[in-house]
């Protein structure tokens, strides 16, 4: 079969793996955006910067405090999530009574500040972060060579995404979140502290982004621009998937990553724009998005 396509299997599966890794990041980030948007009705433009911040904090933990990768996976989301909570309480919460677009503008400004500060401090060339020794090396699968760390990225992303989906769709906590997304006033009238739920949800979404940043640190070099271009693609992913469904965001993220990888094999020049082209098609055919809730 591979002779028919004319591409050696290593190249094909190598690109598919890279696509799957990109898809992992698309999935985690669009999931975080969807969770935040569902309850807050705000598009968190700072999401890319918070992902980048996650990578930087992991790097700082290693280089300033000698704290390694595995602890970073735990500490970084908590630290950056807490930072997100401060942002929400101090600034974002003041905009809830206004048009949603102000939230977009505010978080855009925050993204510029975060990016600018880090660029000022660390420049634009990337900082290296090495793969943790337990995950170095790889497996020879016959049709391709699977680097252990990259396999780990995909597995960890799946665990986090499925775990989040499970909590939201199947647990009591998730029921509170889903109900508050539908009718926050009534949920408040039952005695539930909705503003606190909103704050914690934003913190959780930010923590998801930061977690992705830690995963990304050994794969892409840690640099202040790593979030900006990524977040725009994630926006396209979100428009394609529609933000109505958690599962939809996850599936769309992974699938688009795979499609991007495939495009790189067969038509490399188009790979950076294929997701936008798909977005154009979806807008023509199903504007609410593939998993969108209306019409």
């Amino acid at each position: 079969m591979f002779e028919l396509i004319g591409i050696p299997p290593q190249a094909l599966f190598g690109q598919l793996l890279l696509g799957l890794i990109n898809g992992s990041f698309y999935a985690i980030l669009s999931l975080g955006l969807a969770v935040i948007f569902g309850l807050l009705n705000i598009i968190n433009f700072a999401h890319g910067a918070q992902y980048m911040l996650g990578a930087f904090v992991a790097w700082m933990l290693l280089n300033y405090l000698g704290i390694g990768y595995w602890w970073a996976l735990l500490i970084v989301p908590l630290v950056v999530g807490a930072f997100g909570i401060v942002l929400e309480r101090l600034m974002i919460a003041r905009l809830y009574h206004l048009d949603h677009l102000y939230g977009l503008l505010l978080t855009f400004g925050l993204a510029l500040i975060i990016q600018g500060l880090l660029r000022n401090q660390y420049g634009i060339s990337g900082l290296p972060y090495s793969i943790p020794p337990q995950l170095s090396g790889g497996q020879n699968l016959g049709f391709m060579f699977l680097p252990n760390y990259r396999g780990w990225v995909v597995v960890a992303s799946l665990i986090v995404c499925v775990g989040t989906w499970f909590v939201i769709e199947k647990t009591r906590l998730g029921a509170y979140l889903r109900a508050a997304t539908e009718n926050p006033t009534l949920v408040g009238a039952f005695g539930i502290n909705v503003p606190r739920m909103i704050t914690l949800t934003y913190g959780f979404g930010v923590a998801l982004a930061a977690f992705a940043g830690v995963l990304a640190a050994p794969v892409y070099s840690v640099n202040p621009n790593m979030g900006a271009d990524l977040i725009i693609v994630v926006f396209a992913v979100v428009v394609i998937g529609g933000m109505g469904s958690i599962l939809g965001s996850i599936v769309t993220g992974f699938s688009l990553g795979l499609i991007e990888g495939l495009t790189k094999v067969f038509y490399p020049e188009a790979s950076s724009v294929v997701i936008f082209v798909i977005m154009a098609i979806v807008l023509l055919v199903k504007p609410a998005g593939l998993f969108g809730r209306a019409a």
Partner: protein
Amino acid sequence: MASLSGAEAAVATKTADAAGSAPLLSVRDLEAWYGESHVLHGVTFDVRAGEVVTLLGRNGAGKTTTLKSIMGILPKRKGSVTFEGREMMHLPARHVARAGIAFCPEERGIFASLDVEENLMLPPEVKPGGMSVEQIFELFPNLKERLSSQGTKLSGGEQQMLAIGRILRTGAKMLLLDEPTEGLAPVIIQQIGRTIARLKEEGFTIVLVEQNFRFASTVADRHYVVEQGKVVDMIQNGELDANIGKIEAYLGV
């Protein structure tokens, strides 16, 4: 104007005399706004523990607004609302709920993204002594069979039972029910009437908003008539028949 406030004062006195003890809920000169629109112009009434009291009136009289103001859902309000002696006026809704008041909205508010069981279990316990799930199934056997259905797939009557059932779990002592019989078949309406009677036996205090005063007469102890954002009259249930002409005039029937 003077005569109206005189009537209100008369109403309040009638209640206090009838009570002999401090009322559970005391609403005084409640005013409320929807944006710029001044909807309540000074609502005054009392509810004693264990009573079932209805707010009767035409569409737009301000009955639902009154309930929402008591519950703290309406942001722009003024006046006094005391529950168990505590002033509730400037508390956010979640604190009103935690004081022991529960709200069942007119549109029922069943969450579409939750199944029936999740809808039922959603309101947290605010006070000890709420009904158990088994007791709720006794009241509303239909719910037991439909636990895993998606919330809004239930019929209107089932949704109403779910909306009432879920607030019974919380331990709230006072229930605010907004038009529970609206749009329901007579058989279901009777069931709801029996439920309210049963709840009264269990010691709940209920404030009911109703347009269907015949239904109201089967369950309530007293009726307040609300007109243009004010309470204009109070009628004991026993005296309802004697005043039927007056009531029909109020309701524009």
